[in-house]
């Protein structure tokens, strides 16, 4: 420990004096601002995160939108078309409404999905879609009592029979993009080989609805394969929103675990080193026990058995990691104990708790601050790891859980790199400022090199 004065001002100075410290503080402020923005702007989205229906109109596993610039022919954003509905027939028992779309398609690949959206004032009885390709070939899709938004998977029976009439069999694993290829490919054996007919397509949607039904809104979505800054996952959830909403949770748990465990560790270790003797060896034994517990397996058992909330999770982690800080605090306290002014206090008969608070705690603070900063990323990584194992506190959006989704849906095999890269990068990005600040305080106060 240096002979420098102690106090909050000193640490602020140490941090703000060097360039990396300023960058660190700026990054933390930015993260906090982003968290507040995310919580305010996407408050409703957070509760719908695990509701697959909510994300139906979004393109599934779409690349980040900026990838369009690298390959505009094959990578594109979602296109939406609106048309004017016409009433073809109306009687006292039902009405027939037609919505007609015409659009040009000149991209090198088919959309990832096609979504037909018709908002009506009363439920639709049947929907019938005639899809006309540029060369005149026609596909008919139909369904009774459909939901407002229907994607291609809702017409899978019509499309499967169309595919098997063209190529002779139905491929084993049919997903939305397979069906979309069927709607955009040349008829014949090569229907699903990925070549796309370019030209003007036409989609005639005929609805049978109860009388006096109004078509409030209608839209035809040609789902792109690129969306948002960070792309989307397999349910169509934009990863950008997931990353933004994961930020406050990560910061909260990082701060909580770090502050609780460092304060606990420094007080216990400080008292242990300060008192010495039998108390010291007893506390030291407890510290040794806690240090030799395998943190992750214990956390797994605790979170599995109790399914704790965020606060409980923070308490569990703190319970398992305070010993690291206690050991270091103890050795610092032992060296302070030998100082003359402590002896002087003893001779003067000043009660030991006062000596502890006036002489020990202030000398232990710099170290506590440095380790609080370093403890934040440690807590974040532990929680994200737990979430990756599927043990996140329930109802929370975490990057670990997003990555768990990537692992379970074979993102690496399928080449969905954005789903793996960005959530993990955020874990690192959030950790970096704390590590920088922690190291710079540690170096400044302990004399570093």
């Amino acid at each position, binding site marked *: 420990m240096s002979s420098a004065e102690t106090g909050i001002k000193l640490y602020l100075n140490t941090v703000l004096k060097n360039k990396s410290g300023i960058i660190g503080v700026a990054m933390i402020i930015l993260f906090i601002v982003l968290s507040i923005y995310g919580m305010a702007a996407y408050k409703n989205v957070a509760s719908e995160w695990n509701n697959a229906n909510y994300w139906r109109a979004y393109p599934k596993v779409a690349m980040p939108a900026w990838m369009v610039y690298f390959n505009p022919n094959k990578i594109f954003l979602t296109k939406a078309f609106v048309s004017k509905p016409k009433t073809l027939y109306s009687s006292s028992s039902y009405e027939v409404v037609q919505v007609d779309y015409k659009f040009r398609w000149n991209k090198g690949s088919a959309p990832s999905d096609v979504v037909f959206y018709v908002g009506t004032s009363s439920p639709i009885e049947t929907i019938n879609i005639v899809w006309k390709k540029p060369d005149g070939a026609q596909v008919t899709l139909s369904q009774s009592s459909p939901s407002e938004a229907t994607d291609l998977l809702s017409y899978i029976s019509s499309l499967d029979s169309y595919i098997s009439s063209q190529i002779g069999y139905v491929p084993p694993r049919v997903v939305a993009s397979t069906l979309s290829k069927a709607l955009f490919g040349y008829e014949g054996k090569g229907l699903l080989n990925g070549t796309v007919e370019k030209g003007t397509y036409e989609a005639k949607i005929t609805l049978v609805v109860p009388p006096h039904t109004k078509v409030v809104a209608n839209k035809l979505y040609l789902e792109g394969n690129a969306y948002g800054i960070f792309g989307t996952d397999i349910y169509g959830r934009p990863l950008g929103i997931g990353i933004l909403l994961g930020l406050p949770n990560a910061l909260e748990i990082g701060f909580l675990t770090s502050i609780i465990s460092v304060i606990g560790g420094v007080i216990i270790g400080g008292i242990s080193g300060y008192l010495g003797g039998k108390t010291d060896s007893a506390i030291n*034994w407890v510290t*040794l*026990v806690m*240090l*030799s*517990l*395998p*943190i*992750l*397996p*214990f956390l*797994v*058992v*605790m979170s*599995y*058995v109790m399914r704790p909330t965020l606060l409980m999770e923070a308490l569990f982690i703190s319970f398992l990691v305070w010993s*690291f800080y206690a050991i270091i605090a103890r050795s610092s306290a032992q060296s302070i104990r030998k100082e003359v002014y402590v002896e002087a206090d003893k001779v003067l008969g000043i009660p030991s708790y006062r000596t502890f608070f006036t002489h020990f705690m202030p000398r232990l603070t710099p170290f506590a601050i440095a380790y609080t900063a*370093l403890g934040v*990323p*440690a807590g974040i*990584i*532990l929680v*994200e*790891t737990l979430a*990756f*194992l*599927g*043990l996140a506190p329930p109802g929370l959006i975490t990057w670990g859980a997003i*990555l768990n989704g*990537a*692992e379970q849906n074979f*993102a*690496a*095999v399928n*080449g969905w*790199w954005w789903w*793996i*890269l960005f959530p*993990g990068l955020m*874990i*690192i990005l959030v*950790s*970096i400022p704390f*590590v*920088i600040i*922690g*190291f710079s305080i540690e170096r400044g106060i302990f004399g570093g*090199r």
Partner: protein
Amino acid sequence: MGYRTYLAKQVIVYITVLIAAMSILYVFTYPVIQTVLRKTIQDEALHFKQAILKHASGHGTLNMTKINLEVHRYEAQLISSYGLNRPVYAKYFIQMYNLITFHFGNAYYLTAPSGSRKVSAIIAAYLPYTIILFTTGTLIVIFAGTIIGLLSARYAGTFWDKLVPTIAVIHSSLPTWWLGFLFIAALAYGIHAFPPGGITSVPPPKNPLMYSASMLYHMALPLLAFTIVNVGGFAYIIRSLVISTTKEDFVVTAKARGLSDSRILYRHILKTASPAISTQVALAIAGSFAGGLTTEIVFNWHGLGWLTYVAILSNDLPVILGITFVLTVILLLALFIDELVKGYLDPRLKVGE
């Protein structure tokens, strides 16, 4: 205190630590353990009944009342042997005894490759792979970390020295499993330079030499991820230990005697710092344990970490509890071995100071 006294003391300390660790786990999982045991007993009673029925049907006499009575007796016997009808303190001792003798009960769903449903058999089947991966990784980190740390301490102020804080930052902010995940996407599926996971190629080579070669090839990526994440922190510690030893008087004396730099570094500084380094090894092992285990999941490396993940997915509580106990024992063994090495390296212990 000679080396033997030191050894005896460490053995006692670690045994008490093991017991304490188990007690903590017991307190946290007490209600769950009771359900696990009850389910195990029901399971075994059912097996017992089926065995009797099979036997009896062979002989043509089926007395259901008698059989049910037998099964009840067997169940009662099991309940008393697991201590479910005993007071809490007796339950505690029975549970501790069962843990130490590796009796974890039966798994709910998972089975060992041999077909056994005993948790201990399942764990024994996967444990060797965890030990292989983690031990190799830790040894690589210790060697590479020491070399990098020494280089940066020796060439203070140059490229090597500036490298270490940077990789130390990486160490504190990078999850091992995520790096592994990224490696799989890029190096295994992207450019096909490495296998994406598994322990050996399928089917496993018959030739033992080829088998180990295939295993090493499959270990390359997990080890790379493990090393990149952990080497920085270790090198940083070595660097500060070496630098603080360099300021000692005897190093100045050695310099004054005109000894060469490398001789001072290896014979004087490193020798003095080695007990402190081995203390840091213990902390590094404890710290990298979690990362090593989760790496197994992404690489489909069938060790205990992977087994934990599977057990979580299939809600197999007894397996999770058993793994936690086994991992605690392993970590304690690793720390104990490190303690022995530290005692061996510390000359003060040898002369019995």
